[in-house]
């Protein structure tokens, strides 16, 4: 099914007699049901006011179209959404609805916030086929409950997004990145923390153990970037040799898209932790390959197919999500971290109210 308008989509959902898999561009690796409801027919930017830092687009609008429109005005999606195609081996065109539904954020999340922090409003069709709106297109809005946040990262289980409204930000004039050669993950996280604790507004803090460098990004106006880079060199001088990276834009695009894992075999996990817990958790993972982002708070791990990473980690503060694997592993382990019984009851209760017939992406979020 591929509706062309919101009204058509609402009518289709109301008339559904079987569960559906909701698909934007199909690049985020959600498999399962054969019956598919595609949102890519709902496409186009409906409003863009650079002076108000706001953009509204239909859910099926390609991310590339939005990024091009922003680029023309010197602006950007500050939460730096990941392009999952290389990592997951998917094809297709990433859509803004998919980004929102999965709350996809890249390296700048550590400083600027996640996709959900930039989402100002949504329109969606719930499981009964009703069109619902929440939030709007203004930056501050506490009128009623914030269903906007609830929809972000709900993976289509509470409703099918039809339109999203986003806060955008100026694109920085200059970018610089420092690489600090560190001995191990423990030193790396300490270096990243030291930089993030500084007043120098670090907008990326990653560590690739294979490469051995803690990487720190600074963005803004040229003079300011030059100043803060120098200050950071001083702050980090005790952690190891520091070099400046020659092509920071490409480096961070590769980190964003987890480039070092591309074409490599096995399952890929994404683990959100308290940053200083990362070195200890890394040792428990016994992973073939890892990559740290968000100052250590985000661990990407590649392990042999079917490995039960959650039992290897044991009890920890955070959550581990299976990003790439075979269907049987999803069935055995679950894509998302199991919740406490209290939270699970709330989640089930919400799904039962938003989608009483259980037809929107059943089985996806537990």
């Amino acid at each position: 099914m591929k509706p062309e308008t919101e009204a058509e989509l609402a009518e289709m959902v109301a008339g559904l007699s079987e569960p559906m898999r909701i698909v934007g561009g199909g690049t985020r690796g959600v498999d399962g049901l054969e019956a598919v409801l595609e949102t890519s027919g709902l496409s186009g930017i409906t409003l863009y006011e650079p002076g108000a830092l706001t953009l509204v687009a239909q859910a099926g609008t390609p991310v590339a179209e939005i990024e091009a429109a922003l680029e023309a005005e010197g602006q950007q999606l500050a939460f730096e959404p990941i392009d999952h195609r290389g990592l997951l081996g998917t094809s297709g065109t990433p859509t803004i609805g998919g980004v929102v539904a999965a709350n996809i954020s890249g390296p700048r999340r550590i400083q600027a916030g996640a996709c959900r922090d930039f989402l100002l409003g949504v329109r969606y069709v719930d499981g009964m086929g009703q069109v619902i709106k929440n939030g709007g297109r203004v930056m501050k809005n506490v009128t009623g409950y914030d269903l906007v946040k609830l929809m972000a990262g709900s993976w289509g289980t509470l409703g099918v997004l039809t339109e999203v409204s986003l806060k955008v930000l100026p694109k920085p004039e200059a970018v610089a990145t420092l690489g600090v050669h560190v001995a191990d993950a423990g030193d790396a996280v300490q270096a990243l923390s030291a930089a993030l604790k500084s007043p120098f507004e670090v907008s990326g803090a990653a560590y690739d153990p294979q490469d051995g460098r803690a990487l720190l990004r600074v963005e803004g106006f040229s003079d300011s970037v030059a100043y803060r880079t120098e200050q950071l060199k001083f702050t980090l001088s005790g952690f190891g040799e520091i070099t400046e990276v020659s092509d920071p834009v490409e480096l961070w695009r590769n980190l964003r898209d987890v480039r070092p894992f591309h074409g490599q075999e096995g399952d890929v996990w994404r683990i959100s932790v308290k940053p200083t817990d990362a070195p200890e958790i890394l040792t428990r993972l016994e992973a073939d390959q890892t990559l740290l982002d968000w100052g250590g708070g985000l661990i990407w791990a590649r392990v042999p197919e079917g490995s039960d990473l959650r039992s290897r980690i044991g009890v920890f503060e955070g959550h581990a999500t299976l990003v790439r694997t075979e269907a049987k592993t999803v069935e055995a382990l679950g894509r998302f971290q199991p919740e406490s019984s209290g939270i699970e009851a709330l989640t089930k209760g919400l799904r039962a109210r938003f989608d009483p017939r259980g037809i929107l992406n059943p089985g996806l979020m537990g």
Partner: protein
Amino acid sequence: MEMPRPNPEILARKQAVLSRLLQVLPEDAVIHDPAETRAYECDALTAYRCPPMLAVLPSNTQEVSDVLRICHDEGVPVVPRGSGTSLAGGALPTADCVILGVARMNEVLETDYDNRFIRVQTGRTNLSVTGAVEEEDFFYAPDPSSQLACAIAGNIAMNSGGAHCLKYGVTTNNLLGVKMVMMDGSVVEIGGAHLDAGGLDLLGVICGSEGQLGVVTEATLRILRKPEGARPVLMGFDDNEVAGQCVSDIIKSGILPVAIEFMDTLCIKACENFAHAGYPDCHALLIVEVEGSEAEIDDQLSKIIEIARRHNPVELRESQSAEESAKIWLGRKSAFGAMGQMNDYMCLDGTIPVSSLPEVLRRIGELSAEYGLPVGNVFHAGDGNMHPLILFDANKPGDLEKCEAFGADILKLCVDVGGCLTGEHGVGIEKRDLMSHQYTPADLEAQMAVKDVFDPKWLLNPAKVFPLDASESRRDVRIAAE
């Protein structure tokens, strides 16, 4: 403003409820004498008052859980209260309710600079969260004007903002985790020192739910390193429209100031008399603040001043010292108090798309003439969050009603130009009946469904947020169930 009639069956059981509460709380934590419960009869929306049946002041999560379990059991509505600074009547009691005040829970539980968070009990005041980390040069970013008094619990309930959220975001963008007691007394923990939810973003919907989904007793908050410095510049213009255009041009230039504040003539005069900040005598005043090192500030301000010059300002003045900056901000943050010295006032906080600013200000001026009530405008211009302050005389019969009708017209105007009823104060009782102007019945039903899941008996702060007729059947279930 209508409130539901108190349930006589609950009132009749006051003694029984009281004795059960006394079994789980120390005697001094249960307030039952009508002379003392009066202290809780209103919040900062003082036009509406009603003493609660009882008030309790628990000291920890266990006590909150015990209180809620008992009230759930007894079918007694509970109105949570932070510091009582709500301008929307969020903590207004009903005569048959128990006020649950979190003021005694004000401990710092953990500070972690390496991971950049602080964990506090939610009765702690906003400013004292920053106070707890200031020694290490850190701060908690959301800064509502009431930050000296307002509690984190209330900030979370209302998703409070402040002057500096153009850069740092509002409460929801700085809240990492909560410990929350559900109406049945069970305790859930959501989020923490790690980023983003594993499953549904329940934290996102709890923040701003006006105490209707649970009572948050502990919060993990993001703390940030203070910038090296900050400096405001004052810009005066002869015309609101020109000031609005200047704001838009600054934003489009790629500079992101931490704050862009706007005041009109009436507010400028009131604040100047109050704070002696040296505000110019003009139609529209902008305070634009940037942060960074001295050189970075100079660089950004020179770019901003260049943009402002193109709009022929009548005044353009950079702050020359920390003392002057403090005065400039004192004036702005005292705006409500300064206006309050002139007369009674009602403060609104509708938000509009920045591009509609001139049109909305013009229309407010016309409405002011029609209603015969003066309005001062002070607001966060960078994000379109308006604060029209309508002056009226509470002792003059009919003035309050006229003021409310005027306020409702302004808020409808905000919605009609693509904005919303409230940007940071919350709906409470004040904007409850206007919700149907912004949302369809299905939109409201979707929100109320969330409350159904969290609080099936509709006992937590039940008469707020949703129009009474929209929530009536749900609240009736509560009474029928007695």
